[in-house]
C-alpha cells in the first residue's frame, strides 16, 4: 500500500478517524455534559442561560459525529457494517435520544408554560445523559471485542452489549462529559449561576476521578490487551502519566478559579484517553472474541488505496477550512451569555 511520510494510507485514515472522534468527544462532549447537568440548575433563567451557552454551537459540534461515522464508513466499510449491525437495538435507542435532544433544544423555548418547559428540560437532560452513556457503552464493547465470524457478521445475542466493563466505560464517559460540560458552563456564566456551577464542577470532577480510577484498575486487572503495548514499550508510560497530570491540573485550576485552563486540561484528558485507546488497539479496529484470525484490522478491513488517497486529499483540503470557520463561529459567541430576543 502507498505511504505518505513512511506511514501507509490505511494507518493515516485510522488516525483521521481517531482525530474526528477526539474532536467530537471534546466538542460535543461539553454540550452533552451541559445537557447532563441541566436539571441541577433550578431556576428558569439559569436553565435558559445554560441552554443558550450551547445554543449556537451544539449543532456544529454534532457534525463531528456525522463526519466520524462517514469517515469510518468510507475508510473501513467492513468495520462499519459489523459494528452497526451488531449493536442494532442500542444504536436505534441512541438515535431516538439524538432526535429527542435536538428537538428539546429547539422546542423548549417555544411555549411559556411551566409544564412545557419542564417536560423539555427533562427530555433534554435525560437524552444528553443517555447519549453520553451509550457512546461509552459501545466504546466499551468495541474495546473488549465482539463475537464476529469470518465474514465479520455478529454471532452473539442481542443483549450481550450489557456487560460490566462496558457499563463502567459508559459511566466514566458520562462523568467525564458532565465535568467537561460543567466547566464550560462556568466559563459562560456569571453571578449566582456561576457560583452554583462551581459546586457542580467540584462534584462532577470528584465523580470522574472515582470512575476513571475504577476503570483503570479493571482494565489493568482483567483486559490485558488494552495495556500490552505500553507494557512492552516503557517509554509510552509518559502517556498515562501525562493524563494523570492533566487530571490533577483540572483540580488545580478549579481551585484557582482559572476555568479556561481547567477546560483546556479536561480537553487534554479526553485526547489522551483516546490516544491510549488508539495505541493499544492498533492495528485492530474490532477484535473477534471467536478467533483472532477474524479480527478486523487496519489492513484487512480498509478501503482500496485509491479510495483512501482521494479521501485523504478531501480531508487535507476540508479540515483546515472547517477549523477556520469553526474558530470564527466560536469567536463570534465568545464571552458570557447574554439573552436577547433571538435566544432560546
Amino acid at each position, binding site marked *: 500500500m502507498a505511504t505518505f511520510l513512511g506511514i501507509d494510507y490505511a494507518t493515516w485514515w485510522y488516525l483521521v478517524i481517531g482525530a474526528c472522534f477526539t474532536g467530537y468527544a471534546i466538542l460535543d462532549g461539553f454540550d452533552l455534559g451541559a445537557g447532563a447537568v441541566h436539571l441541577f440548575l433550578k431556576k428558569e433563567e439559569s436553565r435558559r442561560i445554560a441552554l443558550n451557552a450551547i445554543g449556537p454551537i451544539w449543532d456544529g459540534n454534532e457534525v463531528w459525529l456525522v463526519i466520524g461515522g462517514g469517515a469510518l464508513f468510507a475508510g473501513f466499510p467492513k468495520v*462499519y457494517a459489523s459494528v452497526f449491525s451488531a449493536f442494532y437495538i442500542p444504536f436505534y435507542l441512541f438515535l431516538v435520544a439524538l432526535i429527542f435532544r435536538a428537538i428539546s433544544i429547539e422546542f423548549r423555548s417555544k411555549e411559556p408554560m411551566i409544564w412545557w418547559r419542564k417536560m423539555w428540560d427533562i427530555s433534554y437532560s435525560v437524552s444528553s445523559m443517555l447519549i453520553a452513556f451509550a457512546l461509552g457503552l459501545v466504546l466499551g464493547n468495541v474495546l473488549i471485542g465482539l463475537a464476529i465470524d469470518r465474514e465479520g457478521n455478529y454471532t452473539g445475542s442481542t443483549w450481550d452489549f450489557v456487560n460490566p466493563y462496558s457499563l463502567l466505560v459508559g459511566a466514566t464517559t458520562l462523568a467525564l462529559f458532565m465535568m467537561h460540560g460543567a466547566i464550560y458552563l462556568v466559563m459562560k456564566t456569571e453571578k449566582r449561576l456561576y457560583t452554583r456551577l462551581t459546586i457542580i464542577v467540584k462534584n462532577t470532577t470528584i465523580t470522574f476521578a472515582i470512575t476513571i480510577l475504577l476503570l483503570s484498575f479493571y482494565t489493568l486487572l482483567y483486559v490485558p490487551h488494552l495495556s500490552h503495548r505500553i507494557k512492552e514499550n516503557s517509554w509510552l508510560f509518559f502517556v498515562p502519566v501525562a493524563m494523570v497530570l492533566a487530571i490533577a491540573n483540572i483540580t488545580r485550576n478549579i481551585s484557582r478559579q482559572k476555568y479556561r485552563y481547567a477546560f483546556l486540561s479536561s480537553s487534554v484528558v479526553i485526547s489522551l484517553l483516546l490516544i491510549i485507546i488508539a495505541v493499544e488497539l492498533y492495528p485492530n479496529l474490532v477484535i473477534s472474541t471467536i478467533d483472532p484470525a477474524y479480527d478486523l484490522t487496519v489492513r484487512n478491513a480498509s478501503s482500496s488505496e*485509491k479510495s483512501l488517497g482521494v479521501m485523504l486529499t478531501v480531508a487535507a483540503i476540508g479540515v483546515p477550512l472547517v477549523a477556520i470557520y469553526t474558530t470564527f463561529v466560536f469567536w*463570534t459567541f465568545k464571552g458570557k451569555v447574554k439573552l436577547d430576543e433571538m435566544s432560546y
Partner: protein
Amino acid sequence: MDVEILSRIQFAFTISFHYIYPPLSIGLGLNMVLMEGMFLKTGNPLFEKQTRFFTKIFALIFGVGVATGIVMEFEFGTNWATYSKYVGDVFGSALAAEGIFAFALESGFLGILLFGWNKVSPKVHFFSTIMVTLGSMFSAIWIVVANSWQQTPAGYHIVGQGLEARAEITDFWAMVFNPSSVERVIHVWIGAFLAGSFLVMSIAAYYIIKGRHLEFAKRSFVIGMSVGLLSAYAQLFSGHKAADVVADYQPAKLAAMEGHFDSSSRADMYLFGYINTRDEKTHGVAIPGGLSFLTHGDFNAPVKGLKAFKPEDRPGSLNIVFQSYHIMIAVGIAMIVLTTWAFILYRRKKLFEKKWLMHVFMWSVLLPQIGNQVGWYTAETGRQPWVVYGLLRTSDALSASVKASQVVFSLILFTLVYALLFILFLYLLNKKIQHGPEGLAEEMHSPHLEEIAENFEKHRL
C-alpha cells in the same frame, strides 16, 4: 414479513419523513438570501422583518431535518451491512465529502444566522445566510451523487466474488460525474426551490386571506412567486433531461414509468392510467407514440419494453413506479399553471384581490412536497430489484446478523417517534405563523419570564 421487506419499509419511511425538511431548508434559504440581499441593497426594514420571520421558520425546519437526517447514515450499517461493505469504498468518499464540505459549513454558520443578529455586522450575517444555503445545496450534491452512482455506476471495478464481492473506486471524477448525477442534482435543487417558494407563498396567502400583515405578506408573496415561477418552468426542462438519462441507462425503469411492455412497438405516453400486471397491458388515456417521440424524436420508433427483461430483473411494483411518475408530472404542470396565472394577475394588479386563488396558494404548499416524494418513489422503486443498478440486488444487501423481530422493534419505535415529532412540528409551525412577523423582539418576554427575571434580580448577591 421478512427482514428484507421490513428493512425496505423502514428505510422508505424514515427517508420519506426526512425528505419533507431538507428541500424546505434549501428553498427557504434561497428566498431568505433574496430577502436579506434586498434589505442590504435598499435598507428597507420590511425586508429585514421578512428575513427575521422566515429565519424563525427556517430554524424549526432545519432542526427537524438535522434530527431525522443522521438516521439513514446509521441504517446503512445496521440494516444494510452487506450493502455498506459493497459500496463503502465508492460511496464513502462522497459521504465523507458531504460531511466535511457541506454539513460542517451549514451547521457552523447556522449559529450566526440564528443567533448572530446582534453579534456581527449585517454584511457578515448576510454572508452566513448565504453559507448556510450553499452548505445545504452542497449536501444535496453529495447525497444525489451517491444515489446517482447507485442508478448509473461509473468509475469503479468489482473486486472479489460471491459474498466477498465489492465495488472499488478507480476514477473519482468519473464516479462524481456518473451519467445521471448532474441532471439529477439540478432536478433535486429545483424541486427544493419549489418547496421553499411555495411555503413562502402559502404563509403569505394565509395572511392575505386573514387580512393580517398585508404589506409584509404581499411583498413576501412576490418574492416566493418569482422564485416559484422560474423554478416551475426550469423543472420542466430539467425533468426532461433526467428522463433522457433514464431512457439511455435504465430502460427497464423507463418502461415501468410508462407501462410499456412490447419492445417491437412504438411507446405511448399516458396522461393517466394503470398497469394490469397479470396480462401485462396498460390501460388509460395516452398520446400514441408520445414516449417514442420524447426518447427518439420519432412517433413510430420502437422503445425497449418490460418483456425484454427477465421477470426477476423487472421492477417489482410496476404500478407504484407508473403512478408516482404520473403524479409527479401532474403536480409539476399544476405548479407551472398556478405560478403563471398568479404572475399574469400580478402584472394586472389584480392578484391579491382574488381571495379564492389565495386559498388555492395556501394549500399549494403541498404540491412540491408531493412532487418531491413521488419523484423519489419513481427513482427508487423503478431501480428495483437492484440496490446498485445491475450489480447488487436489494435482497442481497441486508445485514446477515439482524433478525426480523429487531426490525419490527425499530420500525414501531420510529413510527411512534416520528408521529409525535410531526404533530409537534405542525403545532409549532402554526404557532409561529399565527404569531406573525410583528414584535419578534417581545416574543421571549412572556409575563412568566418577567416575573422570574425580577426574582432573579432580587436574589442577586
